[in-house]
């Protein structure tokens, strides 16, 4: 019976916790900076950070016209994410003209959008980026169930929207490049860049 009393107490604590944290969370939970509109916060020069659910992200990937889509899931507080980030941006600059699209999805909280924007701006990202919305497990299960949720995580899709590479954890520029080229290469063989189709 003593155990049962504890169970009741813990159940009460569980309910209380969510309510109490609305007021005592050190990070704060104001929604004021996140209207849901697809626009950034602050200066217009800042990167556009858009909220995205897992299903919306899958739609974006599916509707892309790119030969290869690289999706990188990251967070400002994730050191390995920050470490590999410049390499991904460099990769994008190198292979953008050959059909590579990069989609960054931050796992930060909505209150941290200013930090996300600052990081993206500092990294030279000048295309729209995304911030994951919704619950973690729901997002993981909908987006890519094999993903454990570990950050960073990267998926490389081919032109048909099929995942050709998926991995968790930090990777080097060379690793990113070789995996992208592996997917990009067949397109080159069919229609190499700079080659005009004869009419």
């Amino acid at each position, binding site marked *: 019976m003593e155990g*049962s009393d504890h169970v009741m*107490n813990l159940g009460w604590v569980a309910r209380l916790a*969510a309510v109490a944290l609305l007021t005592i969370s050190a990070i704060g*939970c104001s929604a004021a900076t996140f209207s849901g509109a697809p626009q950034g916060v602050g200066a217009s020069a800042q990167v556009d950070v858009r909220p995205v659910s897992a299903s919306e992200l899958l739609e974006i990937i599916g509707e892309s016209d790119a030969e290869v889509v690289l999706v990188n899931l990251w967070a400002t*507080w994730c*050191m390995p994410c920050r470490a590999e980030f410049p390499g991904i941006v460099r990769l994008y600059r190198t292979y953008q003209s050959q059909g590579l699209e990069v989609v960054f999805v931050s796992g930060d909280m909505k209150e941290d959008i200013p930090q996300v924007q600052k990081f993206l701006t500092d990294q030279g990202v000048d295309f729209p980026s995304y911030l994951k919305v919704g619950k*973690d497990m*729901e997002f993981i299960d909908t987006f890519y169930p094999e993903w454990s949720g570990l950050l960073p995580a990267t998926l490389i899709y081919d032109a048909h929207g099929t995942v050709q590479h998926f991995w968790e954890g930090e990777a080097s520029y060379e690793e990113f490049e070789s995996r992208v080229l592996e997917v990009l290469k067949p397109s080159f063989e069919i229609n190499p860049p700079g080659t005009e189709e004869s009419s």
Partner: protein
Amino acid sequence: MKVTRAIVFAALVVALCASVASAGADRLAIGQPAPMADVVMKNIDGGELSITGAAGEYGTLVMFSCNSCGSVLAYQDRIAMYLNKFQEAGVGVIVINPNDPAQAEVDSFEGMQQRAKELGFEFPYVVDATSDVARAFGATRTPEVFLFDADGLLVYTGGIDDSKDPEQVTETYMADAVNALISGDEIAVKESRSLG
């Protein structure tokens, strides 16, 4: 609160999170015993404690955590609230910091003591100086929960609840598992996943 906010801000700027066990063992599976359970680690009270030494009447909750990770910062009030209550209820609690303080100053032993004081930790918060314990568990993020029953076997692993945003929480996985453990019921959700 001002001090806490300052630490939070500093941590976000430094932006370091658990680089835990990137090349470690597979994540501990349900039904397995805790690895390295008898390894003693330095506790914030100045003493030393092992996972076995922290065991409670109903079982033991092992949490890998730190002072610097953004996920932990989002959860730190919940961690304090839940774990204090669990320990009071008879579940042993041990929070293990596997992070290298050279990477984030707030993860120093003194930083751990300060954070525990600020948040009112009444449970052990120990240093995994080599990260070997985290690697042995296959822990990959912070906070990450491993709940063992009175026989020392893993009965729940994963996150605290289903949202870093406390406004969005609807599933309290960790608390539900502890409740079931204490009451002798089957734990409905034995594993959960979260970003981290």
